[in-house]
């Protein structure tokens, strides 16, 4: 393994040095490459392709015991443990269970909260300064008592923090030795476990802007190693050292790049808990309309959005998309993060990826730049140190929700304003990245060009290309990937300038996860603006399985694929659905004067949800309101058309 790894690393270095521009070069037509065919060792006429041929799977958003709230919930695992687990090693979880991923991940970002990083290690160690504070003393006692008391402490800590009532004497601030130590522990673990060609360990952290309980969190990811990352300490949200305004975070990112020559990006998540300020039209910090600088800066630093995770799926909401029968998937819409303000319907449009993409088109019309031009990824946001999104192997949101017969009915979190049920947790998701190599540089660069997609935990393969010349015959191609790059642009890109009088064409293909359910259908979701600047959306079923018995009805709806799940035994059969779907789709409603954004959504057939595996494993019956099946799905990064 190590020899192989060493060789790969050496090859990488030489490629990186010799041909940095290679990935940008036009792809030669397939016939031109056939001469490269070598009979003995290589069958493939396309060896040496310079576009991404492989998807790398990862989690960009994982917390360990270094995070203030994770520590409070009882997480004891360290960043080192988290990386070991992600690359496939077996560990003992914080609650003492043996745990191992069904399949290792290719990359991981440990993203502990920047505010009060290392707070819990300090509290555990009984730091005299902390215990001198009455609140600190009380939290210390609660955490030491463990169990439900520990969970109660965690909730208090989070509420105090989001309501800006965190005792000043307790804050773990950048510049202090404790803070430095925690940051360096994260950096060291990432550098130690980063293994170019085999496993990528990114340095990162989460900036947790949560003013009044409204979630504006961002995960910050470094392309660089510790030599650069140690020059800074993470940006926090509390003044005077930090700020809760994303503009200040972007300034910090710019300052980091100026100072070190490094590169960082930021990924927002959980718009569903932001109460209408994730994709706003008006700046929630000033009450004024955005300027062009805001749009330019946000677009530059935030190429991706985390569209699905444990605290709810963020692609679409049934109120916004009433005719989309799949929009109500694992919806979390009670209120903001700490439930201090209940959800109002008029907030929803500013919270979900689908409407956010359309609002981006509107802002682009006003400002000349689209601030919400993001691609999609999924991640767990797990606080256990364990990046699990597999239904049959789900370790929950935090250490208080690790597997056990009782976990589904304990609240995942409870505040004075309401509670989140544990059975509502979503075993989601992962980030899929089309990159040329498994290295920090290649994966980061792919994220910057948005060549990524989100899944709810399943590892299906999805290709999505847009262009003006795809024809139905292209769906018969033996190598749709090669063809897609030759005739069009991949997910995350802009359509090239319009040629001819036709409508845009899309080549879309999906291959099932060999460990999960067959595929139900592929849909293309289009969002656009009319002449008056109003937003519109439409979901098209573009290809589906079981065509012999399934055709759209009079209402234009495709009948459901069916359901083979045996809930009692937590099994299913792949007797419905298809292992692979592919098609070329031309927009039937195209108007060249209207800006539009297109992305693909791929649905699997129903399979058992994590609750079904728990019920079977522990021999329990859950309340009828607890869902027992799920339809795993993927959301690709969009392709944009600008008139």
């Amino acid at each position, binding site marked *: *393994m*190590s*020899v*192989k790894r*060493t060789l790969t690393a050496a090859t990488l270095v030489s490629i990186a040095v010799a041909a940095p521009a290679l990935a940008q070069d036009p792809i030669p037509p397939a016939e031109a490459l056939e001469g490269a*065919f070598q*009979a*003995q*060792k*290589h*069958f*493939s*006429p*396309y*060896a040496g392709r310079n576009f991404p*041929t492989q998807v790398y799977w990862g989690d960009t958003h994982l917390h360990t015991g270094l995070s203030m709230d994770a520590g409070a919930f009882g997480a004891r695992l360290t960043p*080192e443990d988290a990386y070991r687990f992600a690359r496939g090693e077996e560990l003992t979880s914080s609650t003492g269970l043996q745990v191992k991923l069904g*399949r*290792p991940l290719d990359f991981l970002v440990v993203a502990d909260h920047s505010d009060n990083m290392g707070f819990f290690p300090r509290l*555990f*160690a*009984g730091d*005299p*300064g902390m215990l*001198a504070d009455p609140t600190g003393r009380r939290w210390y*006692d609660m955490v*030491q*008592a*463990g169990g439900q008391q520990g969970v109660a402490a965690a909730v208090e800590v989070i509420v105090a923090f989001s309501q800006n009532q965190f005792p000043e*004497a307790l804050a773990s601030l950048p510049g*202090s030795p404790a803070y430095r130590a925690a940051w360096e522990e994260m950096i060291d673990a990432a550098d*130690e476990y980063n293994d170019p060609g085999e496993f990528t360990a990114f340095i990162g952290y989460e900036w947790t802007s949560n003013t009044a309980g409204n979630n504006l969190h961002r995960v910050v990811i470094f392309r660089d190693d510790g030599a650069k990352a140690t020059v800074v300490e993470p940006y926090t949200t509390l003044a005077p050292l930090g700020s809760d305004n994303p503009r200040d975070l972007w300034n910090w990112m710019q300052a980091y790049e100026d100072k070190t020559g490094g590169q960082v990006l930021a990924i927002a998540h959980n718009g569903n808990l932001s109460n209408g300020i994730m994709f706003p039209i008006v700046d929630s910090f000033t009450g004024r309309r955005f300027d062009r600088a805001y749009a330019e800066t946000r677009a530059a630093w935030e190429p991706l959005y985390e569209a699905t995770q444990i605290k709810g799926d963020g692609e679409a909401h049934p109120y916004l998309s009433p005719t989309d029968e799949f929009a109500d998937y694992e919806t979390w819409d009670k209120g903001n993060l700490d439930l201090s303000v209940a959800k109002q319907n008029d907030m929803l449009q500013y919270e979900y990826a689908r409407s956010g993409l359309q609002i981006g088109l509107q802002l682009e019309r006003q400002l000349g730049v689209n601030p919400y031009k993001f691609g999609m990824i999924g991640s767990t946001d797990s606080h256990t140190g364990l990046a699990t999104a597999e239904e049959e192997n789900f370790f929950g949101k935090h250490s208080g929700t690790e597997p056990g*017969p009782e976990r589904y009915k304990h609240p995942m979190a409870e505040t004075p304003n309401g509670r989140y049920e544990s059975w509502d947790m979503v075993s989601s998701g992962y980030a899929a990245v089309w990159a040329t190599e498994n290295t920090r540089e290649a994966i980061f660069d792919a994220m910057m060009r948005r060549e990524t997609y989100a899944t709810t935990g399943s590892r299906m*393969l999805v*290709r999505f290309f847009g262009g003006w010349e795809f024809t139905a015959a292209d769906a*018969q*191609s*033996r*190598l*749709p*990937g090669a063809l897609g790059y030759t005739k069009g642009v991949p997910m995350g890109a802009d359509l090239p300038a319009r040629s001819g009088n036709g409508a845009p064409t899309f080549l879309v*293909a999906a*291959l*099932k*996860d*060999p*460990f999960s359910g*067959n595929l139900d259908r592929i849909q293309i979701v289009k969002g656009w603006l009319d002449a008056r600047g109003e937003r519109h959306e439409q979901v098209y079923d573009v290809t589906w*399985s079981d065509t012999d018995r399934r055709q759209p009805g009079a209402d234009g709806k495709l009948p459901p694929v069916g359901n083979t799940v045996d809930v009692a035994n937590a099994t299913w059969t792949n007797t419905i659905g*298809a*292992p*692979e779907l*592919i098609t070329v789709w031309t927009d039937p409603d195209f108007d060249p004067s209207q800006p539009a954004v297109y992305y693909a959504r791929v649905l699997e057939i129903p399979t058992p949800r994590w609750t079904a595996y728990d019920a079977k494993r*522990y*021999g329990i019956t859950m309340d009828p309101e607890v869902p027992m099946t799920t339809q795993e799905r993927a959301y690709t990064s969009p392709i944009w058309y600008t008139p």
Partner: protein
Amino acid sequence: MNEKLTRWLREPLVHFLAIGVALFAVNALLTRGESNDAADRRVTVTEAEVRWLRDTWQSRWQRPPTQAELRGLVDDYVRQEILYREAIAMGLDRDDEVIRRRMVQKIEFLTNDLATQVQPTEPQLQAYFQQNLDRYRIPELRSFAHVYFNLDQRGEAAVADAEQLVARLRSETPGTVRPAELGDRFMLQHEYRLQSEQDVGRIFGQRFAGALFELEPGEWQGPIGSGYGLHLAYVTEVEEPQMPTLALVRGDVLRDYASELREQANDAMLASVRSRYTVEIDEAAIRVLALGGDSSVGDR
């Protein structure tokens, strides 16, 4: 693990040093608290204590305390010290979950520190490497090409189609076959270079990986089932398992060694302390009181 080091870690003297420091501190306080000796009922605040109080204040408030504030800190310290000794004397530390955990943590911190301070010598590292060779073994690697048959599209004919093709391919000149153009379209690659069985399992599923690593190289074989459908496979290259030199995997070995040292130090400490105790556990109670236990026994 290195024999010398193991012996060193198991050395009672080392444990006594580590544990002794913690126990001595508590013990000294205990004895003082319990004694009625006038000298032990004396609370002394020296310059060292005052300096420590001042520094703690300063790190929190970013300025030194005023005289009145420092006086207040000292008064509070004296009050704490007296009440602490009284509480110990009254045995309030016993049966208190919070204090138990805190004491356990302190001892764990001590042993962890011991382990991280050990820098292995070259012979120790070499010995650790030798003893854990299996972990660093480069597994067998195989290069292969395959042809895919889509069961969903071909239905039951897939098996016959695959068998027909494999017969044909065997009669063809190796090197003229282009797997990407045979069978059904496959969106992953048709050819993989030097993959381990685990690598193949991640892409195709364990069943396919296991079968592939049994195949004779240099011949078209199959059909073999996978998570996608059926495949014909041709193994082009086999690289036998290899043993790397320490120099090649030095970073991995150092990392694993340090990690294991930490665990061993904890385990060794627990084992040595535990050996001085007789532990009696009511095994029947565990069976009865656990989930799904025999409810006819006990009061559940």
